[in-house]
């Protein structure tokens, strides 16, 4: 059967479930007695197992299955969580994550799961210590296998309450048969809920359903994988029931087992189950009162039920169409103004307002909360801190801040880099922190917030701060700055050296950071997204990295300038400021025209010369209009004839024919319908 059409969905959903497992595991680590969390994890793992099995990823399914067994024991209070168990579960989740990644890269998702599987089984059998001592997973695995299969055979959990058990006992006495049914729908079944309903209908015609798993409500809402389980009382024989169900189309297969009520484990299980659900109820009741945040997040979960998945390409098309509308709007506004007809002006004004609203809706549709990226960090920080024997507390603020989907996809790696950097270089060891009078546990704050047309992401640690002398020494060693210029650098400029390529200040080259490729990669990546990154630090108190990102990549703010008869757009993100200079303020150094801008010598670039713009014969003002642009620390002044003004422009590509045009990054369409080219300032600054 061709599964490819479901593969994307599988990968996407697997990631979501893994994410939620990771998150819940971290919570569980801090609150090990909260069965509610275990239940959440169990549910995710269960779904994951079902999906993996359906898609034929056996290794993933079997590993998830073992993890599920452990979780089941925990949630039924048969096992207490300790850090060893947590670690093994974390390892398993990592392995599963690896498989999902492998699958998404086109692999077949196979991996050697024997190690974790053996460990998980050992947990189930209660001899984890043994396995840890011998270290030989193989042997233990062999031992564990028969035990496990035995256990699985006898203790199927029907999850029945006392009432159901009484009913079943009575039914048994009156000559009814008790069955456990597992109905599996075909994988390509479209209307799962409808099929399930037909199954229920058939069953009810011949007997009575005691319990369904997932619940009837979930089944009605199609919240189940391809199979569901039913505890059922009927006078009919098993074969009869099987035939009745198999007569319904799109049923893959039916498992029927007769329930033996004499088995003692049921009572126990049901008892444990009751306790568990009681505990769960308690936590549910307590939650809203205690934590507002918890309530908010669960609200969010409800609302996600009403979302639809849309291909990002469709949103791109919508965005493109809309940007055309924006251009026409500009033109219409201009025409209406010129016509002087009040009715027309009014209508156009109204239309502008509506299209403004439309614009914000379309832009927000492409927006995703940065949470998506942040979610994986707590786990990463935990692992890293453990590895480095440091104590680190990650605080996340503003995870709900939204960014364009394209930016979200790209921002993950740079942030990982910065966080690693903070943990490795920033936060000191607990002993050292104690000595300097700090708490043993270091804190890293990850903050995201909106400001104007930008989103800021801040990575702040309360570690040792940047050692300026060390940075300078290293920079001189590596030839990044000359010893002579080093003295004249400001603190800020010294910190910026961290972003130069081939720089690393770690005393010992560790696995985590300090491989020489580092912050410069972060900087390049962020600049390619139209953003910027800066760093600030206080010796002994900590370091803050600040990333500034544009809200969206398709509409940007730009300054329109005129040179002779041509108009160009300069992205606002690379402009420092615009200024007007008198001719006598322009100096020459090494046959290059320069100006003095706030004490810095800035070279002038004549757009007319560099773009070979034909002379229009217009008389020039004496004063020279200059747009000061920057590329990192370097600056240049673009000489133009006049500034037209600031404007929101829609980015357009020049098409496939004109590629690699010098110093032009794209084009936009102005209100008068003409095309203006967008200047790529990076190419103009050497």
């Amino acid at each position, binding site marked *: 059967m061709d599964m490819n059409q479901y593969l994307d969905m599988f990968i996407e959903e697997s990631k979501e479930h893994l994410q939620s497992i990771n998150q819940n595991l971290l919570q569980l680590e801090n609150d090990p007695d909260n069965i509610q969390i275990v239940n959440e994890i169990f549910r995710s793992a269960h779904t994951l197992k079902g999906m993996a099995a359906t898609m034929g990823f056996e290794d993933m399914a079997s590993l998830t299955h073992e993890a599920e067994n452990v979780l089941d024991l925990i949630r039924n209070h048969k096992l207490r969580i300790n850090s060893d168990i947590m670690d093994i579960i974390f390892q398993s989740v990592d392995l599963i994550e690896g498989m999902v990644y492998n699958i998404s890269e086109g692999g077949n998702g196979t991996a050697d799961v024997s190690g974790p599987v053996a460990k998980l089984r050992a947990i189930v059998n209660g001899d984890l210590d043994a396995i840890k001592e011998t270290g030989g997973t193989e042997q233990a695995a062999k031992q564990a296998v028969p035990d496990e299969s035995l256990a699985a055979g006898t203790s199927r959990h029907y999850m029945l309450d006392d009432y159901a058990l009484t009913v079943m006992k009575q039914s048994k006495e009156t000559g009814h048969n008790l069955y456990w049914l597992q109905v599996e729908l075909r994988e390509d079944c479209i209307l799962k809920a409808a099929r399930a309903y037909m199954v229920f209908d058939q069953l009810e015609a011949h007997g009575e359903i005691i319990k369904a798993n997932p619940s009837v409500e979930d089944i009605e809402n199609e919240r189940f994988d391809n199979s569901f389980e039913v505890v059922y009382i009927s006078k009919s024989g098993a074969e009869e029931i099987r035939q009745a169900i198999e007569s319904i189309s799109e049923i893959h297969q039916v498992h029927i087992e007769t329930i033996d009520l004499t088995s003692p484990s049921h009572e126990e299980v049901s008892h444990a189950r009751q306790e568990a659900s009681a505990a769960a109820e308690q936590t549910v009741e307590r939650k809203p009162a205690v934590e507002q945040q918890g309530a908010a997040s669960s609200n969010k979960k409800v609302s996600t039920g009403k979302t639809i998945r849309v291909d990002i390409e469709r949103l791109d098309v919508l965005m*493109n169409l809309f*940007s*055309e509308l924006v*251009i026409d709007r500009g033109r219409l506004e201009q025409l209406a103004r010129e016509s002087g007809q009040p009715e027309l002006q009014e209508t156009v004004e109204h239309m502008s307002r509506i299209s403004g609203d439309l614009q914000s809706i379309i832009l927000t549709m492409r927006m995703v909360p940065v949470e998506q990226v942040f979610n994986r960090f707590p786990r990463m920080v935990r692992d890293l801190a453990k590895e480095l024997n440091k104590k680190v507390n990650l605080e996340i603020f503003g995870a709900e801040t939204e960014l364009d989907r394209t930016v979200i996809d790209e921002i993950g790696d740079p942030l990982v880099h910065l966080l690693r950097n903070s943990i490795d270089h920033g936060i000191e060891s607990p002993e050292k922190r104690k000595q300097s009078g700090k708490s043993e546990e270091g804190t890293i704050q990850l903050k995201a917030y909106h400001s104007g047309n930008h989103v800021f992401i801040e990575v702040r640690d309360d570690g040792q701060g940047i050692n300026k002398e060390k940075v300078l020494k290293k920079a001189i060693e590596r030839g990044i700055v000359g010893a002579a210029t080093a003295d004249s650098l400001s603190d800020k400029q010294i910190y910026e050296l961290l972003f130069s390529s081939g720089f690393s200040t770690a005393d010992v080259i560790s696995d985590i950071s300090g491989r020489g490729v580092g912050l410069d990669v972060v900087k390049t990546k962020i600049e390619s997204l139209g953003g910027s990154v800066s760093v600030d630090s206080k010796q002994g108190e900590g370091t803050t990295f600040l990333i500034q990102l544009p809200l969206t990549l398709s509409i940007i703010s730009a300054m329109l300038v005129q040179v002779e008869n*041509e108009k160009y757009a300069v992205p606002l993100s690379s402009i420092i400021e615009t200024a007007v200079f008198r001719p006598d303020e322009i100096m020459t150094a090494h046959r290059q025209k320069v100006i003095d801008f706030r004490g810095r010598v800035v070279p002038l670039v004549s757009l007319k010369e*560099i*773009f*070979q*713009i034909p002379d229009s014969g217009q008389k020039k003002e004496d004063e020279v209009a200059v747009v000061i642009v920057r590329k990192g620390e370097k600056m240049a002044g673009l000489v133009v004839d006049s500034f037209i003004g600031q404007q929101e422009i829609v980015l*357009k*590509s*020049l*098409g*496939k*024919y*004109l*590629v690699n*045009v*010098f*110093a*032009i990054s794209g*084009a936009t*369409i102005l209100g008068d*319908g*003409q*095309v*203006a*080219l967008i200047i790529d300032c990076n190419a103009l600054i050497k």
Partner: protein
Amino acid sequence: MLEQTEIVGEVKVIVFRLKDEEYGVEVGQVKSIERLTHITRVPRTPDFVKGVINLRGVVTPIIDLRSRFGLEEADHTESTRIIIVSVGEVEVGLIVDAANDVIDIPVDAIEPPPEVVGGVEAAYLRGVAKLEKRLLILLNLDKVLTPEEMKQLDGLEG
């Protein structure tokens, strides 16, 4: 040659004028024919690239076909047209002196191009169609629009 005679079919072409010759491009490759509008010059591109226009929201590069073929450029007149053609993913507009006809050419009327026709190199041509009193030069657009070709020219010029 045998194959050519066997295929009895017709090709629909758009006919345009460049200097004194008539040229044809297959209708399938033509997206539209436009009147001359404002062209925004793109700096540091070969001379025959006249710039880009706003074609209903799509920024489209414009090539002056005369200068592309090394013919002397002429002033634009009332009859000057831009033929928007698309080959693969590349979409460009070609400035021609006039575009005024759509005709069907029998495939067997197409002959391979001679070395040079009307000053245009054979590499850019697909063939020559002889029709009663007209001589129609069929363009090989893939060749005309190769970006590699453009880079080469770019290199030569400076």
